[in-house]
């Protein structure tokens, strides 16, 4: 998790030479620079996308900037018009309820009660696909979707980015 390393380096004052970056930042950068080319024309059905902004990456990590990058990438990959904003969002997003070790802690009923807010929030978008750029979020959103009878598909971003990738011949 982005925050675990970022805050760990900071709080324990761990010396390091590398620069710590998020893959989301890089996706956006590479697309902007033309280093990777994507084309949303595959989305002929007009699949609608929304996103789960991970707390550890956005609010506790980089902030709105990375959430904006995330949206930029999704729009490039799925088509500008196929992104549906979720509320609240970005730095102010609700935690999915799977974070903080909740998925491992065993209080499933509490975890799903917590997740109901996330479910309602995502369901309200009416999106077909929920992008979850964090493994905890992915597992939790998948679980609440099936538990509360959601209809969306929960996926990582890379699957769609791969799909939209245009390679120079």
């Amino acid at each position: 998790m982005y925050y675990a390393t970022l805050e760990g380096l900071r709080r324990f004052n761990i010396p390091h030479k590398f620069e710590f970056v998020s893959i989301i930042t890089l996706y956006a950068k590479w697309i902007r620079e033309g280093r990777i080319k994507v084309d949303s024309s595959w989305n002929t059905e007009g699949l609608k996308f929304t996103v789960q902004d991970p707390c550890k990456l956005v609010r506790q990590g980089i902030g709105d900037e990375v959430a904006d990058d995330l949206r930029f990438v999704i729009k490039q990959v799925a088509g500008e018009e196929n992104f549906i904003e979720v509320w609240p969002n970005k730095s102010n997003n609700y935690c999915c309820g799977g974070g903080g070790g909740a998925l491992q802690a065993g209080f499933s009923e509490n975890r799903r009660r917590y997740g109901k807010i996330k479910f309602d929030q995502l369901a309200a978008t009416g999106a077909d696909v929920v992008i979850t750029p964090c493994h905890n979020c992915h597992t939790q959103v998948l679980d609440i979707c099936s538990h509360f009878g959601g209809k969306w598909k929960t996926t990582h971003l890379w699957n769609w980015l791969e799909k939209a990738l245009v390679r120079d011949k």
Partner: protein
Amino acid sequence: MSNKKNQQGNTGALSEVSGSVLVVGGGIAGVQAALDLADSGFYVHLVEKSAAIGGGMSQLDKTFPTNDCSACILSPKLVECGRHLNINLLTLSELVSLEGEPGSFKAVVKQNPRYVDPDKCIACGTCAEKCPKKVVNEFDMGLGKRKAIYLKYPQAVPLKYAIDAEHCIWLNKPGRCGMCEKVCPSKAINFDDKPTEHVLEIGSVIMAPGFKPFDPSKLDYTGYGRLPNVVTSMEFERLLSPSGPCMGHMERPFDGKEPKKIAWLQCVGSRDINRACHGYCSSVCCMYAIKQAVIAREHSESGDLDASIFFMDMRTHGKEFEEYYNRAASEGVKFHRARIHSVLPSGENDNLRVRYAGEDGEIRYEDFDLVVLSVGLEMPQQAIELAAKAGVSLDADKFIVTDPFKPVSTSRNGVFVCGAAAEPKDIPQSVMEASAAALEAGRILAPARWKDTKKKEYPPEKNVYSEPPRIGVFVCSCGINIASVVDVEAVTEYAKTLPGVVLAQNNLFTCSQDTIDQMEETIRREGLNRVVVASCTPRTHEPLFQETLRNAGINKYLFEMANIRDQDSWVHQNEPEAATEKAKDLVRVAVAKVRGDAPLPYNSVKVTKSALVIGAGVAGMTAAVSLADQGFPVTLVERKDDIGGHARKFYRTWQGNPVQDYLASLVDTVKSHENIDLKCGVSVKGVSGSVGNFTTVLTDGTELKHGVSIIAVGAGSFKPDSDSRWNYLYGKNPNVHTLLELDQKFIAEDSSLSGINQTVFIHCVGSRVPERPYCSRVCCTHAIDQALKLKELNPDMDIFMLYRDIRTYGQRERLYQEARAKGIIFIRYDLENLPAVTEEGGNIKVTVKDPIIDAEVELNPDMLVLATAVRPKVDVHDLAKFFKCSIRADGFLMEAHMKLRPVDFATDGIFLAGLCHYPKPMDETIAQAQAAASRASIVLSQDEIPAESITAQVDPRKCTGCAVCTEVCAYNAVSIDEATEKAVVNEAMCKGCGACVAGCRSDAITLKNMGNEQIMAELETIMDNW
């Protein structure tokens, strides 16, 4: 008023001290300060950065707690300011530098080009109509559009258009547009206008740069800037305002639909040390939110608008605020003690959803179609820069630093401050400080009074006796205040048909500067000799129109007003046709009356240039010294044998300044002042006379002659007697004290305090209850400061504060935060669930329920401190009767106007200050006393002042000399001439009240212009249509 040179003062210093003052900022504070100074003999340069004066108040729809139309009560002051001979209005201007010393400063002011010649502009609006460039209208908080050539707002003073250089097409690309220049009928456009620099020689400076509403767009969770139906409170004022973007019809900015359910979220940008970076309370938001909720409900077409206010502590600490709050709640405004984390869309129709938890922790959801963010006040960046240029210090919150004992003085001598720039505050407080700052600015220049001023000359008055009536009728639309109900065109047409009427016209705002100028023109051109204005109330506007008549060479008593707003359009909103008929009736009556009006003499009386100040507490002493320092003799009367009042019992101010040291030096000044005659152990026995000439008899038989009076008799404190609901062992257990009793221990440096293990404070003892429905304003801050003092004495002491709402308004919030930070625990209780205090073997037990964890908490204090109510004095009734002042139901004295005349009484020449007005802390008391002295100085600085013209006159043929008139006259203005045995009226003393007329058994006394014939003419004409 006469502007003859004052003969008093130290004439030797005249050559050195300037008689001019610079006032920076043209909001209500700057305007009030300018008027006070200009009326008391100083020349004022009023510098305003925008194109017109009026400030934040001009953007408001209504004002609390009186629900007055803000523009309506402000407008006369602005117009007065704009027309004042001794106010040099510099709009589009900013201070560049300030050099020198008190008494002789040199200020450089840069005036930016208006590109419209104000002498030529007739404000016809053709330019703006044709201007092709639309610009976001900042006056409407960006909700509407204006043109690149614009009038700041309809009642703007000066009423002159200005070109916005940033957006004007021509100014950016000369030759491209120039439409305004082509269409302007008076050739007022000047694209070559250049900035000008004014170098002003002044003696003192007043800073009144005002505030800026907090911008919530950086708080994403509010939804502002992201969700279309989230607005700020200032935007909502514009949505409510008749001159706003939706003409007062209250629409959602997004789709123009009328909202049915509105939420107000309090403390946005206030009391927030996280992302808003403003730890202070903005003081005004609780009240304006309640006001907006009340007004919005009045505005809603169905009348059942659902209004909810989400708050943390309800801060209704001002005069009549608590009653306003209670009334709003009983009328259906919902109050939720809960703050909202985020505003979210609710799905359809761009409605909004909030999730909130009451104190019980239960989660609730509610949908609204509009959310208003009650944004706080902050110091504008421009004002921060201004402070640097003027060389005055700012505090950590970026407000201008003042001193509690010199509440309007800045860190630089000779530079004063008033209004929200020193701390967020409401309009009455700003107006009070404005007068206080005027006093201070003038006090150091007293020797130069009338030195720089100009004198008003009126044209000779036309003799109208020989002429038939030529009546002009001016029917006002008052924006939409009148025109939305009354068919003003029909009324105007009707007026033309009335006998004697030669001209009738309709105006959008009759009180606006251009209409006033045009009225003067019209009177001359049409040869009018009588005028009727059908508009609002004579209470606020009659002097303005009468002045216009004088300027046009007509005696000002040849004027009548028909009140077709307050008494018609406002009260008959749902019956427009009947309201129009009523307006016609009222105009017809006014015309009938004015036909019989005769010109009256302008009486004046000589002013006795001395003052009587009653009550020698901090307020009275401050007022006395303020006047005495200007050379006016003052008699200071104190009922008790010693002076100092309440302040003798106070340990320190909330800012931490010891009160006793200050008090000692003030007492010393009073006792040794050559112009103060201190009389202790006496009180007032009787009063006669009126403004300029009072005669007061004291209980020791002394008879005093004085021109003005300041009432500063203070207040008492509520003693919680153990039989009442406040069964808190007061007077029974030696360890139960009031706040003032604990202060006594601090003053005495009682060493037993540091040994205390646990202290409990109970707030609101005796305040905010049905029998005393007001908030005592001072106790929250005082109690918290005491708790902090106890923590200083013993950091391990446990302190619990049991409260209903914490009301540490303004920067006092810092104390509340500090108290929490030091581990002082605050537990909230309700009136329905008071803390219980019991005693077991001398040990006190206090039981209270903590609402957050829903548990009874039992405390075992060694000391219990009760924050008891401030209570008005009972014996103030006599004094009020002597001076003919009103008293409110709660026992506090009633000022002339709660908002704009906070230290005047309705009776001229009498002023008030301190606790007899309302509970207030030391700094506010001092400011109010200075303000009262400022208002009093206006009278005392004149040699003579106008007296009543509508006086009683006796027909000696009918008078039988029965002397009933002398019995009923409250002003001792009528007497029986010993030689003729007939009644005679002393015109200087007659107030025109009519008591003698009603009392006369022989029909021998009449009031001028109110004779039987005229009244009968009015009555008969009312009947005409019946």
